[in-house]
C-alpha cells in the first residue's frame, strides 16, 4: 500500500514543471515541416519556418523565416520577413523585409524597412497614425533593427 505522502511526491515531476514555466513566455516556433491551415491568434512571439495557409492575428512579433511559405493574412505588432508571403501583411508598429523576402500582396505599416535583395510586388499603405502605442513600442523595442544588409542571425 503506497503511503499518501509518497504519492504526492510522485505527482509532479519538478523538472517538467520548470519546463512548463519556461515555455509560457517562450517564442512559439513552427518548424519547417509543419503545415498549418487555419487561423493562428493570441499573444506572444512567433517564428515560422513552415507553411501557413490562413490567417495570423497576433499581438507580438512575427518572424517569417526563410523556408516559410505563407498564403493569407498576417497581422501583428512587428513583422519581419525572410520567407515567401502571398497576401496581406499588416504591422501595427513596424515591418521589415529582409534580403530573401518575397512578397506578393499588400503591406500596411507605420514604419517600413526593406533590405536590398528583397522582392516585393504589391502595394504599401503607410498608416499615418503612428499612435502613441507604436511610438512607445519603438523606443522600448529591441535595440533597433538589424543593420540593413546584415541577415538575421537566426537563419538556417
Amino acid at each position, binding site marked *: 500500500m503506497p503511503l499518501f505522502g509518497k*504519492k504526492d511526491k*510522485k*505527482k*509532479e515531476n519538478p523538472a*517538467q*514543471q520548470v*519546463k*512548463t514555466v519556461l*515555455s*509560457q*513566455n*517562450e*517564442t*512559439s*516556433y*513552427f*518548424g*519547417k*515541416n*509543419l*503545415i*498549418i*491551415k*487555419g*487561423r*493562428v*491568434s*493570441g*499573444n*506572444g512571439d*512567433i517564428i515560422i519556418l*513552415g*507553411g501557413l495557409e*490562413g490567417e495570423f492575428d*497576433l499581438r507580438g512579433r512575427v518572424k517569417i523565416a526563410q*523556408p516559410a511559405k505563407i498564403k493569407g493574412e498576417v497581422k501583428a505588432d512587428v513583422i519581419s520577413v525572410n520567407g515567401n508571403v502571398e497576401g496581406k501583411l499588416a504591422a501595427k508598429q513596424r515591418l521589415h523585409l529582409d534580403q530573401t523576402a518575397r512578397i506578393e500582396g499588400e503591406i500596411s505599416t507605420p514604419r517600413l524597412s526593406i533590405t536590398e535583395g528583397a522582392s516585393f510586388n504589391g502595394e504599401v499603405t503607410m498608416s499615418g497614425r503612428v499612435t502613441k502605442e507604436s511610438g512607445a513600442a519603438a523606443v522600448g523595442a529591441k535595440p533597433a533593427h538589424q543593420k540593413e544588409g546584415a541577415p538575421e542571425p537566426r537563419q*538556417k
Partner: protein
Amino acid sequence: MQKVKTADSTSLVSQNVRIEGEIQGPENLHVEGYIKGAVALSGNIFVGNTGIVEADLEAKSIIIQGEVTGNVKAHQQLEIHPSGKLIGDCTAGSIDIKEGAVFEGRSMMIKKREASAMPHLQTSKGSGKHHQTKEKTKP
C-alpha cells in the same frame, strides 16, 4: 536543409497562442497553448500542462499532460500523465495511463502484426474503461 522523413525538429505552440485549423507534416509538436481542429503528424505530440487541445490527434507517440478533447491515434505509444485528461476515443500501439489521469472514452489497440489478419480485434470496445496494454486474444 534537405528534407528528412523523420521528424527532426520540434514546433512549439506557447501558452498564449491559439491555432484553429489543420496542422500536418513530419514534425514534433509541443503544445502549451490552444489548438482546435485536427493535427496529423508523423512525429510526436506532447501536450504540456497548460496545453488545451480540442482536436483529433494523430502521431507516432502522444504524451498528454494537459487536456485533450477529441479522438487520438498514436501509432506507437499513448501516455497520459497524472495531470492529463483525455476525453475521446484512443487508438494506440500501447497505452500508458498514470494514476490520477482522466480518460473517458473507448480504447482500441493497434496490433503490430495481425491487424489485417484478425479484423475482429478492431471491433472490440471498452465501455468507459481502457484496455490494458497487454490485451491479448484467447489462444
